């Protein structure tokens, strides 16, 4: 083997090592995401059972169910932003996309929890759903998504427990999400649904949203 062939083989070897380490790091990331989502699923199940319990035994435990729901929301929100960054860094494991869909379902479950809890316990917080697209975004759409997030996070900071913020990804091919989009005839993103009735399509300023949020 001449020096050129040997150098080529070694170069390929270095690239393979790099790819192998990359796959390893991706797998570690996936297991972390799975672990986090697994814990969120337990909390969700816990909150769901608590809701059933409250439904059967009366409203004395409403406050505790509310706290549980909030803790659940905080946790999945944190995992959501983690997964989002990790998806960008993950090259070799398409599995991470599946984890994202699972995350969207957990957020959807949180939304349903919040609706149920509000009805049963007569809470007056606002459910604010932020619908956005993730795939094939133009620069303009990406900027509008980020801005809508920032506007809603500012509102959440101001309203605190008076507002439940539920970020949902629209283009994940889930029937539950597709139904929401069809029902509210949502065509443009970002979109915001407040208390399941007020729908805003496209980037919406805080003033327009505030009018409908019981802050």
């Amino acid at each position, binding site marked *: 083997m001449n020096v050129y062939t040997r150098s080529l083989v070694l170069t390929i070897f270095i*690239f393979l090592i790099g790819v192998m380490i990359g796959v390893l790091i991706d797998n570690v990331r996936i297991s972390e995401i799975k672990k986090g989502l697994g814990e969120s699923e337990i909390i969700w199940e816990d909150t769901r059972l608590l809701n059933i319990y409250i439904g059967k035994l009366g409203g004395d435990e409403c406050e505790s169910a509310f706290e549980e729901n909030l803790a659940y929301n905080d946790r999945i929100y944190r995992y959501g932003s983690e997964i989002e960054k990790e998806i960008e860094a993950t090259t070799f494991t398409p599995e991470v996309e599946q984890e994202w869909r699972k995350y969207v379902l957990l957020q959807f479950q949180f939304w349903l929890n919040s609706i149920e809890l509000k009805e049963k316990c007569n809470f007056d917080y606002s459910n604010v759903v932020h619908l956005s697209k993730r795939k094939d975004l133009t620069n303009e759409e990406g900027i509008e998504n980020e801005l809508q997030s920032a506007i809603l996070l500012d509102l959440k900071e101001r309203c605190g427990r008076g507002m439940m913020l539920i970020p949902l990804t629209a283009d994940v091919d889930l029937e539950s999400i597709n139904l929401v989009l069809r029902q509210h005839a949502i065509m443009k993103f970002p979109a915001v649904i407040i208390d399941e009735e007020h729908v805003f399509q496209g980037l919406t300023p805080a003033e327009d949203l505030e009018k409908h949020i019981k802050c």
Partner: protein
Amino acid sequence: MIFDIVYLVLLFFATFFIMLHINLWFENKGKIFLKKKLKIIPPISLIIPAYNEEEIIEETLRKIKNINYPRNKLEIIVVDDGSTDRTYDIVKKAITKFRIKGLKLFTKKNGGKASALNFGIKKAKNEFIAVMDADSFLDKNALKECMKHFDSDEVAAVTSHILCSRKKSFWERMQNIELMIISVTRKLEEYANVIWATPGPLSVYRKDVLKKIGGFDEKNLIEDVEIAWRILKSGYKIKMAFGALVYSLYPNSFKRWWRQRVRWSIGGIQTFSKYKSTIGGKHHAVGSFLVPTSFIGYSSSIIGIGVFLYLLILRAFDFFAYSLKSFSFGLDPFSRLEFAYYIDFKIILGLLVFFTALTLIKISFSLHKWRAKWYDIPIFLFIYPILYSFVNLHAIYKYYKGERGWLTK
């Protein structure tokens, strides 16, 4: 995705060249430091082309006096290439002042370095032609060290181990690190017979080969690279004498460095254009190695900086658009700014290649006594190569605009 592919392709080529040199090092490191004996001392004609060198030429000649080479076998030819300063007078005085035996001074109409060298070759009477720059200082054994490597008729040229004579300014230190690395890579390239330059500070040639291939190309801005390619194309070998130390003056300011490198880069394009039709030629290093690698070198630096600038401008534009929109919505664009970055396989690969490159740099430093300042190495690794991309861009622009002048002095 397209940028990832570009990144990986560039990284692949970089890794290949680093691995080639590391391979050559491990295969030949025993041979590099083998002491050779000079059995016969052949006569040499040492040609010094000089154009407006009044500041340095006297010092160069003073040091030449101390060269360890038999005076009866050393002919020194200074070719004043139509200097407009006192170069000619200073050399004339130095002949009597230093009593340098065998020194001949000629003057001619200005025609560029290559024409001065060809003029000197015509005047030279010996079978070996040593060429040195007027601002270079030879170690006393440099010529003997070079001559030890003419061990077969196939060896048409031997080049030397060049370092910076001044290392005070930042730019000189950068160039000295560069020269230290080049000294090792050039020696290693000898074993693959792909030495791509016989640099001006000191190279020795067989006169009959120079005559046979037509001497130096007077139209080329880097005649020392072009002649090396022509020698290899003609089927000869070039060797490097690691023990032949030469100290040369290099630009000590950014402006001078830039002008010199742009000139070299234009010369590189000229040489590439001249030999591009030889690509794929299996019987010599030019077509099978030097032409493809110089093409890869130029295109990598241009594509690399192009992608880098495109992404930088795109990100800056995005942030600007985001900021404008944020302000129009009454938001602070910096309030939710995050600088999170996750390690992915591209970074791992980049680091792997970086560490293999460090091996080569470590080898270069281990063979030299000079130590750089602590911050010189990171700057040399991360900033200095980026400058070359801009140099190449500027050179391509100038080349296609037809500005192919000497650019210095």
